[in-house]
């Protein structure tokens, strides 16, 4: 337990030192929130105010950026550079390391959500959400599931050079198709078909239902189940293919 807290402090320091993580996974959702919010914040989307709709979308985009994309890229780089291998030679237990790494990304996501909600309040006058308990549970579920997918994907990527390319090619289109930036209601049939299997689609539905329609999380069985299934799938791939050592050659 002492080792866990020690490693968590180290991971948080590492997170705050990384400009790439700070910009691409942390600041970008806030920047999009401001830009898109000032474009269509006053429109009405799917029966709610545009800025409210977008805030929930940006929380989903933040979750996939931080927990999935950020974590996957960091893990591949650490594995390929040999840091994970070096850590294996120390007495730091693997579970403590992984738990601290995940906790640091969850903490970053928590700050991200707080930042988005604060921005929404200041810029667009969005009131604080009512169902705090359900919202926290929904966010935790989504973030943990995306962490599982992030570790799973990191195990499948072979080189540090490929990490950003592969991860960006997955999460950026996924965010768009799932409707994080714009309502997916008027997207072409093909895109809506793809959206129907993406975990982010269900996560966005879940948080929009909780934040915008005052639904409690226990009424959201389907959304919760699909998100959890994706997370478990990622974790299974991770357990099967995760490596501490760099790819040979």
């Amino acid at each position, binding site marked *: 337990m002492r*080792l866990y807290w*020690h*490693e968590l402090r*180290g991971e948080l*320091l*590492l997170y705050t*030192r*990384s400009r790439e993580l700070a910009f691409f996974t942390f600041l970008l959702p806030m920047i999009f929130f401001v830009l898109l919010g000032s474009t269509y914040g006053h429109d009405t989307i799917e029966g709610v105010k545009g800025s409210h709709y977008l805030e929930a979308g940006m929380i989903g985009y933040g979750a996939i950026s931080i927990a999935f994309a950020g974590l996957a890229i960091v893990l591949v780089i*650490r594995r390929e*550079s*040999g*840091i994970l*291998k*070096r850590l*294996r*030679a*120390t*007495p*730091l*237990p693997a579970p403590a390391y992984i738990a601290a790494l995940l906790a640091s990304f969850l903490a970053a996501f928590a700050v991200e959500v707080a930042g988005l909600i604060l921005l929404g309040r200041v810029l667009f006058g969005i009131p604080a959400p009512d169902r705090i308990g359900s919202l926290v549970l929904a966010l935790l579920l989504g973030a943990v599931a995306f962490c599982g997918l992030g570790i799973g994907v990191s195990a499948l990527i072979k080189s540090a050079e490929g990490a950003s390319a592969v991860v960006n090619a997955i999460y950026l289109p996924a965010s768009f198709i799932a409707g994080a930036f714009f309502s997916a209601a008027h997207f072409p049939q093909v895109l809506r078909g793809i959206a129907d299997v993406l975990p982010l689609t269900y996560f966005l539905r879940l948080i929009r239902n909780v934040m915008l329609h005052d639904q409690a999380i226990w009424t959201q069985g389907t959304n919760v189940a699909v998100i959890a299934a994706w997370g478990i799938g990622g974790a299974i791939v991770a357990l099967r293919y995760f490596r501490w*050592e*760099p790819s040979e050659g």
Partner: protein
Amino acid sequence: MSAIAVRALRKSYGAVEAVRGIDFEVQRGEVFGLLGPNGAGKTTTVEILEGYRSRDDGEVEVLGVDPARAGGEWREQIGVVLQSSAMYETLTPTEMLRLFAGYYREPRPVDEVIELVGLQEKRDDRVRRLSGGQRRRLDLGLALVGDPELIFLDEPTTGFDPAARRRAWDTIRGLRGLGKTILLTTHYLDEAEQLADRVAVLAHGQIVAAGTPAELTGSVPDTEIRYRENGREIVLATAEPTRVLNELTGRALAANRELEGLVVRRPTLEEVYLSLTDEDAE
């Protein structure tokens, strides 16, 4: 009890036999050099001892424990310098050493480690701004911060300029002075000669020679005599250099000739090593 005991160790990767039945022991407090060309099986051997790789056959004990089944308790006592200098580029050497110190129950004070590896002036610079030699020294510092009994150094000075190598050698000698056991792999002969109490030469997965550096050079009795005659280089190897030289110089004087480019010398460890590992043949 010896720090490392290896008996009949074997390891294959598919059809390639990387390690083909080797035996050696490293005593406590000793600097042991595992010498050999690239691909000889050095890293495979060391990574089995470090617990990274499984072995196919044979027995291995490191600090009395089988590394394949070793846990955190055992890792408290070993320090590992890998070939690659994997670092958190955005931290400073002090921060990185502090992070790693926290993994051990009884770490060596971070300030002391920084001094030991000579990084005082760079202690608060970001790791990404360190030179190759400085990174390697931080590497060593990270292996030392847990205050280990036994230290593995896998090619610690590859890619160093001569001055940086000498500094690294001084540091490693300092560790020996602290009573640490060190297993060093290298493909530099002078490094083994300078640092190791005993050396094992590994070639094609087998130990082809072992002993002190002096014993290894002493095992080849011949002295080499070289000179040029009619533009051709003549090389003679002899166990009786005095007699052969007397004959050669006598003949040359009688013919009023000069023995051009005359050199008489003992073989260096390098030549012993090359003849043992027959790198020329590859």
